[in-house]
């Protein structure tokens, strides 16, 4: 299962101060893990929510440093793309995976798959037994749809103002965090549904 999906900044951008980063979208699937953990069982809903937000922030930070180290090591210049060049942006994206040790921040060990598209990171946190080949394909597919349907290569703020579109995408392509084995025909039929939704 996938534990969460998030979109966040991964490198310094002009809109933010140095060292600052923002989580633009995050979706944690399933029940909160603290309700079944011995350690955190006594938390009230408000504290649970706070803990969950902090966990997401930890993932975003870890991925952010992974992306910047990976970019530094590869020495490849970032390719700037404009709206309409989503396929190119995706092709030029860096990718990688971060091991999240048990307890840091989730109770069990997780793998955080990330895709860095210019200043933004798209991250899937998967259970450690998960089929990463499938997860990688799903992440690429999700990222492409986000870039296209929320016009993320442009200057707009649709990811903040139309975040329900991401929810809808996730409900089709990653329902409740379940990675799906979709061949191109299944994928097409889901994409049709998504397109119909976005057209409204």
């Amino acid at each position, binding site marked *: 299962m996938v534990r969460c999906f998030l979109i966040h900044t991964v490198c310094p951008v002009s809109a933010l101060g140095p060292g600052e980063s923002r989580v633009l979208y995050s979706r944690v699937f399933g029940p909160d893990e603290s309700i079944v953990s011995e350690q955190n069982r006594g938390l009230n809903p408000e504290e649970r929510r706070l803990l969950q937000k902090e966990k997401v922030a930890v993932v975003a930070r870890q991925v952010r440093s992974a992306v910047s180290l990976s970019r530094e090591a590869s020495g490849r210049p970032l390719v700037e793309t404009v709206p309409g060049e989503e396929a190119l942006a995706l092709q030029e994206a860096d990718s990688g995976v971060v091991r999240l040790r048990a307890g840091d921040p989730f109770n069990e060990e997780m793998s955080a798959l990330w895709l860095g598209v210019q200043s933004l990171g798209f991250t899937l946190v998967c259970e450690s037994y998960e089929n990463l080949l499938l997860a990688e394909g799903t992440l690429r597919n999700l990222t492409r749809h986000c870039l296209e349907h929320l016009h993320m290569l442009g200057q707009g703020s649709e990811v903040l103002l139309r975040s329900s579109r991401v929810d*809808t995408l996730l409900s089709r392509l990653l329902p409740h965090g379940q990675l799906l084995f979709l061949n*191109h025909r299944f994928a097409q039929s889901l994409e049709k549904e998504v397109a119909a939704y976005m057209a409204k």
Partner: protein
Amino acid sequence: MYSHGSESLIKQAREIQDSELQKFYSRLTKLLQGKELGHETVDSLQRLLLILSATKYTKTLPPELQKRIFSLLSSSAEQLQVLSSAVLRETLPLSGQDVNYNKENVSLMNSHAAALLLSQAGSRADLSSLCAQLLRGLDGRQLEGSAHSLTHTLPILNTILTHSPESLTEDHVTLLSKKLVDWLRYASITQGGGASSGGFFTGPRSRQPVPIAELDGTVSGDFFTVLCVGQGFTEDQWMNVYSFSMLRHWLLAYHSVSNGNTTAETDDRSEVDGSVVSMVSATSSSSRLLPPKERLREKAFQYCQRLIEQSDRKAHKRIDTDLQKACLVEAVCILDCVCEEDTSLVFRTFPCIKALFGRLSSDLSFARVLLPIAQFYLHHGETAAVDCESVWNLVFGRFPAELFNDHFLAHELLRFLRQNLESLQLRVPHYTRSFPNLLKLLAWDSPAVVDDFVDLLPSLVTSGTAVELLHTLLDLPCLSATLVLQLRSACLPISDTGGRPLLSLDAFRSPSYRGLFLFLLRGEAGSGDTIDRLSTLHELLAEAADWPRVVQCAQTVPVLLHIFFNTVLTVADDKLLAHLILVMLERSSLLLNIPKYIQEIHRVFSCHLLRLCKLHPSLVVDQSHELLEFSGATANVYSKEDVYTHVVWVLGEYLSVSCDSRCSVRLITSCFETLEAVLFEITSSAPPPGALCPAPRVVTTLMSALAKLASRSHDLIPRVSLFLSKLKTVTRGGSVPWCTDEEDLVAIVTRGEELWSLLKAPGVAQSVLTPPPHVTMPQWHRDTNVATPLRLRALTSLTQSQ
């Protein structure tokens, strides 16, 4: 991307004033009271979502508004369902809210409402009741045949199984196992939806069912799987996809469900499953008589066999080719899982796994599929008495050697090693030998995999590998640079001099240095601990010292060295430890020239030299010759201050009869003379050109070491005293060429005076400078014969009696 506009939206959302927020709430409540919910409502809901989610502090909605939003969950417009679910996930549940909801028919609940229910579950009990209701829905609706709304049920159940397997009962497992068998094995084999085989004149009524197709376009002759395509899909075909997607986790986890809550007939061996199914493939009648779990295993086995066969077909689309690989991974993992449970399946499975390995092993683009195959061999190779040699040659040989730059493979390979560490150490001799190859993964992408190596490194340290491993770790930055060169050399033609030419690349290609680089790139340990011409290699790679990849790699080495030394203490004998001390002395001047790296490595060496000698003081006498040689070289004072200081300290501290009876007066005298000469040299002249003044710590350590040695051999006392008094006289003038800082000089002189006065009373000096063990490790509190505990006890009893 992220613009100033977006940032200001987040700021506004976070800083919104309460009065403004209340106004916004009431406006939205009014909007929601209206009959038509238009764009404005949707927009406002979206804004509300932004306000709620932009901060980590929870905001509470007015109850009226919350109720209104809650009712949108069952709206007919999906957009409103999505938004209301998202908004409510960011707020606290209204008391009684979910209870109300549970009373409705959960099976009618849409996916977005279910997501809310799941995210707001407050306890295992909540999950249990949700689970029970979903399963009831699953059971009850089979006759209505509208499976589409059921699709979200399986992922939710899988989520609950992940978080809280105790929430499912044995009955649930039985029920769901049966369902999964149906969906997996008996989904329709004709295309769903608008598929038509007819021509122009055939009306909808005369539509013939069109069989599903394989990925290569041929008509499918067997049961439906996720690798089958059609123009459209029926609902049970969708369920097939969902079922297969959750199958592995289900097989892995259904053991952990609670066993307490079973009804009488869980062992329904005699039950004949009577579900309505399409019976295309001949099913063995015997499997119909199996209990549900075993039947599911059998069907999973068949499904995976079919997937493996289907993956050999040529897919037309890239996405399908990728899916075939992902399916192979999943199929092999599932087969592994069912074989773990039922060893009799091992013999039926191995031929297929072997054939798959044979088919894929020469093509490294299938490396990530080959890893689960290796896992299968590791788990079951012994049972089936299969030769695994070629599998390990691939996993420990070609994978790290040729695919070191594939992040995902590196992650998966290291995860595989971590998870199977014990059995690999036991059964796969290749494992420890392959460390030069495995370390390529670390050299290439240090930050990403260092965490894995922190866990793995101890298993690679054995008495046989320790010395070579230490050398390899020290040369890890060189390996990193060499891997960069190897890749560049492969992709740049030799004539290409575009950009700045790399001297190291020329060296890499030159036959005269071939041996050096080949040694670094070796795949297995055992061809010698290191090479003679290391310094040449370091010169050739000098320009790599500021390559980011090399620098990142160099930063991880100290961490790993600490782990190495901590582990080596547990496996090494005295001989090996002595060898390691020599390696440290030798390698302290043989490192790739990255200034910070050298400094860090010296620090690690110093720390562990001290620990080794503390634990095994006789090592100092054993290695006195080499230690003296090292400490006698004045140049080391300037270039290896840290290591030098510690060597001197170790000599002064442990060269004593009380540590090792072999320590003769001659040895002490010769050590004394060596250190004396160095101290004299560095305090009588300015440092050599280019070097800084010797650190005050070196000077004081040398003085203390001399005093310690003299206290053990009293003939030497006059010589130290003479030196110390001279030092005092010389520095009376104020400045000396070997120490520019006045405070430092004062400290040095004070130390000299202290030692001088101490040495005036040799008996006292000896007990202060070489205290007997009972002084350094006092145990008075334990010794009942000494006076202190007695007095303490008496005092205690006095005070307590009052």
